[in-house]
């Protein structure tokens, strides 16, 4: 299924999404990678205020290239998500509802996703020039010293993602592969090589 969604997210707005669905996101979200996550969690551990509005927020795991003239942000594809596993459960507990990255995430994070009705989305890894087109504005709001890894508030229009882990904990990496292999096996038994239809 294809969906259009706006940020901030709520449990309600995410509950119908299923692994494999294509979603086009419009609204504000934040960019952050490991270095910024570490600082956010240090703040939480010390009982301090976060520089971002975490309730219903969506974080995009990305470290973009510098913008050329006329671009809001340079090339901006997802980075590998498991590096944020150590930090994301704490952010989910505080109200984070969406994460966008690539690659598998840990069991502990998935449990938190299910607990809070959040969703983990995948953007196409390496399709950074294409993805950049849906980013309309970008502003550094924290940790400028981290350069590409600074936290930016970005405005996106129809930002293309796929649901990897839905709010029930179902997993596209597992399901997609199983379905493909099952189909392939069936075809083989039927003596056909073509998988079309």
């Amino acid at each position, binding site marked *: 299924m294809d969906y259009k969604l706006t940020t901030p997210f709520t449990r309600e707005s995410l509950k119908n999404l299923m692994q494999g669905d294509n979603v086009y996101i419009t609204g504000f979200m934040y960019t952050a990678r490991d270095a910024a996550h570490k600082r956010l969690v240090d703040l939480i551990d010390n009982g301090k205020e976060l520089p971002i509005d975490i309730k219903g927020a969506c974080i995009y795991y990305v470290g973009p290239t510098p913008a050329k003239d006329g671009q809001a942000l340079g090339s901006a594809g997802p980075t590998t998500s498991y590096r944020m596993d150590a930090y994301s459960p704490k952010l989910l507990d505080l109200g984070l509802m969406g994460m966008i990255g690539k*690659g598998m995430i840990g069991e502990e994070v998935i449990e938190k996703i299910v607990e809070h009705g959040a969703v983990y989305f995948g953007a196409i890894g390496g399709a950074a020039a294409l993805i950049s087109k849906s980013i309309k504005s970008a502003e550094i709001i924290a940790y400028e010293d981290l*350069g590409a890894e600074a936290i930016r508030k970005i405005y996106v229009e129809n930002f293309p993602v796929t649901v990897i882990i839905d709010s029930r904990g179902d997993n596209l990496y597992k399901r997609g592969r199983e379905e*493909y292999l099952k189909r392939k096996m069936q075809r083989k038994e039927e003596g056909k090589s073509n998988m079309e239809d």
Partner: protein
Amino acid sequence: MRIIDANNITEEIKRMVIEANYFLPEDVMKALENARKNDDWKLSQDILDKIIENARIADTEQVPMCQDTGMVVVFLKIGQEVIIKNGYIGDAINEGIRRGYEEGYLRKSVVGDPIKRLNTNDNTPAVINYEIVPGDKLNIMVAVKGFGSENMSRLKMLKPSDGLEGVKDFILETVELAGSNPCPPIVVGVGIGGTFEKVTLLSKKALLRDLDSYNEDPFYADLEREMLERVNNLGIGPQGFGGRTTALKVNIEYFPTHIAGLPVAVNINCHATRHKEVTL
């Protein structure tokens, strides 16, 4: 004897790091288009279409195809009759990177110390491999290597008794463990033989070989074909969403080794396989 100006090397490196990031090599584009043609799983087709479209956008708008503009790896073949004037060749290379990453709007992704992790802010230094060869030419091969795929690479010192089957299993196991992380479709570079450090270099060199080439030794060329087929039977598919095209190519390089050993290294690259070559 032939004299090459270090400034010339700087200029070439600058040009190559920018072009490598903007323009996908033709052999990789061809491999993607072929994969698209031969993949009949709808999800895979959609993703391959988008990856091809991304490469076209990067090309026409002259922007980096991927935000991970990589750490630069350089392979030099220096003819023993070549003399470099106006500076040290290593400095000339790093200066080219410094300029290229600034002027080309490329991301600076190198930290100066692996533990303290402070960004060098100019993407230097490069990892430079020097080789002295006969002749009076200087051959420079530049790869920009993303770390989503580099992080999924592995090395194992197998026992000779593990044999060919052990090598095959290790390759498949590495691709399986990498799963969706290295942005499939991937390119698999395999090194077999040599020593502990040699085998990883072989796997990196395998990644630099064109995707439409095969190992000159028919035994290893057949192994490349067989392993590509088996990798693509795993079902991981583009982006790990399931499908046929897990890899575009498996390239293998080998070297003599010790009677007691069978080293094997698997270096993984993503669909943004970026390299450039020039001979001065």
